[in-house]
């Protein structure tokens, strides 16, 4: 579904991604790991079309479409979802209103009629149970006054509502205690199917105990320098990144 070829991107003239190659197929879970500043979050930002970044080379195909030519909202409509590392607060805008707008925009994109209020609320009720989000949270303003754990659960709730084909979880484990981590991971696993795929961006093995990856990639200095099976994550947990850094730096 996703084919990234030689993707290069910069922010304020500073080159961050220096040629990323990655292919993701339906049903797969890919973990992207790497030391701080290696470009992990930049990759998610560039894929979802954050205007702060400039693509300087390469291509991204998403179900045969040129992803980079689409606006951020059209990428979302096409089925790309980002669980933000730092979910943004939007005071005064209720989750109900926010999600209803998002869902109806997507329906409009595919030429469908907007959902009735009753149908929408029914879907919302169903989906929020996936991450044990209570009714009160669902009617509060977007992320306003949510705890760290609630914010991340709210991200997965939105993922459940929008039923994306490809979800990118950007450090979804950061700032979560073990119970919240379990709830979030459970939610992600519940939503997993043979038709959708997940890219998990993380520093730690911990999350991967719950969300089992098929592939683990190491990102370093804007390139994927190593790809292997889930055993790589365990090795990294044990040995850290230094041996990879040395290996890469000596080759240069």
């Amino acid at each position: 579904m996703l084919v990234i070829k030689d993707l290069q991107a910069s922010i304020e003239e500073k080159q961050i991604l220096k040629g990323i190659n990655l292919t993701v197929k339906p049903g797969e879970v890919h973990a992207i790991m790497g030391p701080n500043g290696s470009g992990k979050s930049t990759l998610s930002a560039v894929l979802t079309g954050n205007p702060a970044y400039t693509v300087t080379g390469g291509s991204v195909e998403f179900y045969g479409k040129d992803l980079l030519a689409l606006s951020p909202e059209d990428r979302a409509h096409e089925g790309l979802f980002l669980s933000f590392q730092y979910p943004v607060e939007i005071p005064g805008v209720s989750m109900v209103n926010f999600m209803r707008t998002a869902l109806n925009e997507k329906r409009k994109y595919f030429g469908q009629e907007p959902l009735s209020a009753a149908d929408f609320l029914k879907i919302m009720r169903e989906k929020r149970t996936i991450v044990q989000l209570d009714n009160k949270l669902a009617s509060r303003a977007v992320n306003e006054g949510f705890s760290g754990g609630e914010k991340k659960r709210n991200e997965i709730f939105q993922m459940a509502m929008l039923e994306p084909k490809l979800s990118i979880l950007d450090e979804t484990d950061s700032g979560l205690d073990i119970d919240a981590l379990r709830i979030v991971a459970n939610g992600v696993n519940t939503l997993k199917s043979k038709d959708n795929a997940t890219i998990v961006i993380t520093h730690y093995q911990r999350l991967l105990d719950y969300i089992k990856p098929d592939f683990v990639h190491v990102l370093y200095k804007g390139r994927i320098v190593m790809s292997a099976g889930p055993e790589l994550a365990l090795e990294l947990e044990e040995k850290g990144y230094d041996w990879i850094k040395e290996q890469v730096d000596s080759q240069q």
Partner: protein
Amino acid sequence: MKEIEKPEKGNQIIEEAAQAEYKYGFVTDIETEVIPKGLDEDVVRRISALKGEPEWLLEFRLKAYRHWLTLKAPTWGHVHVPEIDYQDISYYAAPRHKKEGEAKEIDPELKKTFDKLGIPLEEQMRLSGMAVDAVMDSVSVKTTYRERLAELGVIFCSISEAVKDYPDLVRKYLGKVVPYTDNFYAALNSAVFSDGSFVYIPKGVRCPMELSTYFRINAAQTGQFERTLIVADDDAYVSYLEGCTAPMRDENQLHAAIVEIVVEDRAEVKYSTVQNWYPGDKDGKGGIYNLVTKRGLCRGDHSKLSWTQVETGSAITWKYPSCVLMGDHSVGEFYSVALTNNWQEADTGTKMIHLGKHSTSTIVSKGISAGHSQNSYRGMVKIAPKATGCRNFTQCDSLLLSDTSGAHTFPVIEVGNDTSVVEHEATTSKINEDQIFYCNQRGISTEDAVGLIVNGYAKEVMAKLPMEFAVEAQKLLSVSLEGAVG
């Protein structure tokens, strides 16, 4: 994700926003009777004569005019009102009735105008459930539901008709809340006011429908000086709405109105405004100068006056709907959303003057500035020494949508005793790229995202508007902004 400011992109979006059309900018082609430009005692006499007014009212006008001559336009507002040539304005314009003597028959062209504006003038349109007084240029065109309201003893008519039909009531209250000596524009209005609405709710009557006045400037090179007087007698209740639009013109037009409200014992008045005068074009050319004095006197014990305003129009806005809380336990409220875009300037707020014991007031002001606009909140909370046990809560928020706009607050608080409590909260925030991108990532376009965020920000105030108006006002906020982020 890092927070990154991208001013160039912001400017581009604002430019797009500036091109959002003002959809009420049309001109009605109708025969208009306009008296020649200029202002002197003869013009004041002529306006009074044209309206067939009694001697006492002419005297009131002349006194106001003579006082006005001694005044200078105020300059303390954070707005730039250019030197206005008061001799270059026509002070009276009236759509001419085609058939003389059949004044009740409304001109089809006029009806079309108000239809276009979505104002129901036909009483058959009962679904709208709202009584309307429509004022075009200087005169009231049509008041609906008048007879039905009269059965309850509610008087709702143009102020000119009220002068003829209920002279004692008008004389008793006119100029009592806003005397002609109040300020420069109030004196001018008192001298030349043309029309406006008059409302009287008798003792114990809850007015069963929303009363609404719709103001429309049509004629060129004229000023509009309407005057509204609302009286709620003991235990009465009324909810009153005011809307306004004007054609798009290169020239600036002056609108200097007065609204006076008297609230007696245990009575309640809710006054809502959606102000959408023509704001001028994206370069700041044209637009209405909206220089208005609005004040209510909560004379009775346990009386209550609530102002709600959504201000999106006008090149310059200078208005401070205020409450004089004279009655013990009286309540004053002011809920305001003021949105400025392009080169608009707004200096608006309120005065809460606590004279009665245990009187309370609430102020919630939400300013939104985009483009190169300047948006100021100016407020005064004054608690008299004898007004013990009073409370005020003020919340004053500003939202900036661009780097080139300004938000300012000028609060004054004077507390004359130590049993009263005054709270003031203020915030300034800027809509940020992160919020927009978050919405984008969920499939919401930038334009819709700004609408969502701004309406969320203004929600507390919007919730105070009557239902039908709230929907209209929400749309208006989105249209006035279309994507104005920077």
